[in-house]
């Protein structure tokens, strides 16, 4: 298998799907001539042309609104929001239109829409540009929310998302674009709404997704040196949330640490912990522990920013605490 970066994996997925299906097109800020803010769509404009790679005004509401309209008429738009922080501007289109049209009109129309966007902190972009509001979007029934943590998952899930007839928010993580990983050759997809055991272990279950999969692997490596074998479950998809591998793992280890990059309150960790308690109460041998961002607007200062974001050491400590 080839080792490629997350950026290359996402780029390949888009390219392959656009080659495969002429109905697929891209729209967003700087996606065309510039090649994408994170260079994901570099070369697309020259190859596919301005019809299928459309630069838009700086108006997220318009981007999502146009994409919804295109999807309703049978195209397969991939809208790019430069960061998830700007998705708030398009909130009504995302949660009131995209998430509900199929339902409110009795299933008369499908909405094959993918909104690609980028979240996460750690790049000194300040409090308004570094957020991880994944849980907010995952709150709404009707909208699928996925956030892969490896290049292989990113490629397979993006291809699956583009082929899906449902509106899907596809959340990428800016600091993961350079991360390399093995990606299968050829055409493949990965189902949306399936969690996976990313690393087998026996002592503690770490439940995580996106960037924190990478941090959890680093923590697992440190802990393995002490003889502690953690099992990592990568959720990959926040809605639908597949708890089966989590519960299966928890029944084996009886203890869990949930790691997310966003804030703890009302977060992914809260949801996963609640479901563990609801379905596996008799298997609980220690309180479930959450590792998350400190409850402050993310500081700009590099040192303070690092202190506010979950670090590998935080995960290691949390695992020790539940043992």
């Amino acid at each position: 298998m080839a080792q490629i970066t997350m950026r290359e994996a996402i780029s390949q997925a888009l390219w392959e799907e656009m080659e495969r299906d002429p109905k697929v097109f891209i729209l967003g800020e700087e996606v065309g001539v510039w090649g994408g803010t994170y260079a994901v769509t570099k070369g697309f404009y020259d190859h596919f042309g301005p019809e299928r790679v459309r630069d838009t005004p700086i108006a997220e509401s318009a981007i999502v609104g146009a994409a919804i309209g295109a999807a309703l008429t049978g195209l397969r738009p991939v809208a790019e929001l430069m960061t998830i922080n700007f998705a708030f501007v398009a909130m009504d289109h995302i949660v009131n239109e995209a998430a509900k049209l199929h339902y409110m009109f009795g299933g008369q129309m499908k909405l094959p829409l993918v909104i690609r966007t980028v979240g996460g902190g750690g790049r000194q972009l300040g409090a308004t540009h570094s957020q991880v509001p994944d849980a907010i979007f995952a709150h709404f029934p009707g909208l699928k929310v996925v956030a892969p943590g490896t290049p292989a998952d990113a490629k397979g899930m993006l291809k699956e998302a583009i082929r899906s007839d449902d509106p899907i928010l596809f959340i990428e993580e800016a600091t993961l674009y350079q991360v390399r990983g093995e990606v299968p050759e050829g055409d493949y997809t990965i189902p949306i709404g399936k969690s996976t055991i990313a690393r087998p272990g026996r002592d503690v279950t770490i439940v995580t997704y996106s960037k924190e999969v990478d941090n959890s692997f680093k923590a697992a490596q440190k802990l393995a040196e002490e003889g502690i074998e953690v099992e990592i479950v990568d959720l990959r998809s926040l809605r639908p949330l597949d708890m089966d591998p989590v519960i299966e793992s928890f029944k084996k280890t009886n203890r869990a640490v949930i790691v997310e990059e966003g804030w703890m309150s009302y977060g992914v960790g809260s949801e996963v912990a609640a479901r563990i308690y609801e379905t596996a109460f008799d298997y609980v041998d220690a309180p479930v522990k959450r590792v998350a961002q400190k409850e402050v607007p993310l500081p700009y200062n590099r040192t303070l920013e690092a202190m506010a974001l979950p670090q590998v050491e935080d995960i290691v400590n949390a695992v020790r605490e539940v043992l």
Partner: protein
Amino acid sequence: MADIVAMPKLGFDMAEGMLVRWVIAEGQRVQKGAVLAEIETDKATVEVESTFSGVVFKHLVTQGTSVPVGKPIAVITAEGESVDPSLWETGSSEGAPKGTQKPPETKPGVQASPEAPLSPAGSTSTPPIDQLEIKASPLAKKIAREQQVDLARLVGSGPEGRIIRRDVEAALKTLQLSPAVSKGKGTLPAKSASAAPALVFRAAPIPGDEIVPLNRLRGAISRRMTESKQQVPHFYITRDYQVDDLLDLREQWNEVAGEENHLSINDFIVKAAALSLRQFPNINASLVEGGIKRHGHVNIGVAVAIPGGLLTVVCRDVDQKSLPAIGSEIRVMAARARDGKVRPEDIEGSTFSISNLGMYDVENFAAIINPPEVAILAVGSAREVPSIIAEELAITRMMKITISADHRVTDGAEAAQFMQLLGDYLNMPLGLLTLV
């Protein structure tokens, strides 16, 4: 006036005790003599009675804490009374400080403990319920429920003393190790023992090594037995006793005497040993500074198997008591020991011990002396064996008893004579049963 309850000294060698459980929560009323808390010493879990009546104002130690003897553990006040924290904060650790003897000094700016607000007199306060519950993980509770393990008897190793899976599993292991049969005619109480382990012939997966931490009782047994075996020069004498008459008499007695007066074989041996010891004061003794202390009282310790170890319950002045009284006392104390509710006086002050494994179909064994005693009897099973009586082959019921004795104090001839006399008493079971 507030009263302070201190960690009691529950045994002559007790330096500290682990407060296992508060029975009366803060804010609840307590009567003098009511059980206030449970304390685990080296030997057992013991109930501590309140020495005062009033309201439990404050627990000074949390559950699962080891506390030196004499250190204050709780404050008891009159209802509605407020107390200055300096009362216990300055309490000395040598003796048991008593509030009534030490008027509380008023410290400016220091108020009664904020986390234990007193309800106004007359109003009812709700005790925090969780203090009365056992802190255990749901998984530990589930395993305990399935395997019928009493969580109240476990000490948690999890955060904040929580009982977690490994604690229950460790307890289960210990239970499985303790032998478990109740079918024998023997006398070791076997009520607590579970069914004998099932036979497993097929190869099972090889489990990993594991370390089971020593609980206090195990630790105490380990320490004392090592000391004894290393420091006391043991010698052993085994003798065979014909017990046909004893067994017949016991059977008749148990048929007519009623459940509460049932006698075990061991009860007869306890009584016979006590009478024998009266005539062998050197064996009812302890080696002390300057000589051999021959004890006036004959207090016989009877080993009782309990989960995770054993305790020796002590029947006092056995030579002064009737056999049914002896049997009843031992039965009651053994039950308390198995339930983890043994009282300090149940296990203190023995001058001689008897260990009986007769119920496990054991031919013979040798016991380790229980210091500072000088000897211990190890009693095997009564077995039907071929014997020659009056030049005829006959079937008789025989029982082997081995004495382990301290050679610093006594010698083989003396111990052998003691064993002979013991046999003479066992040959006269009617005398043991009827005469006091």
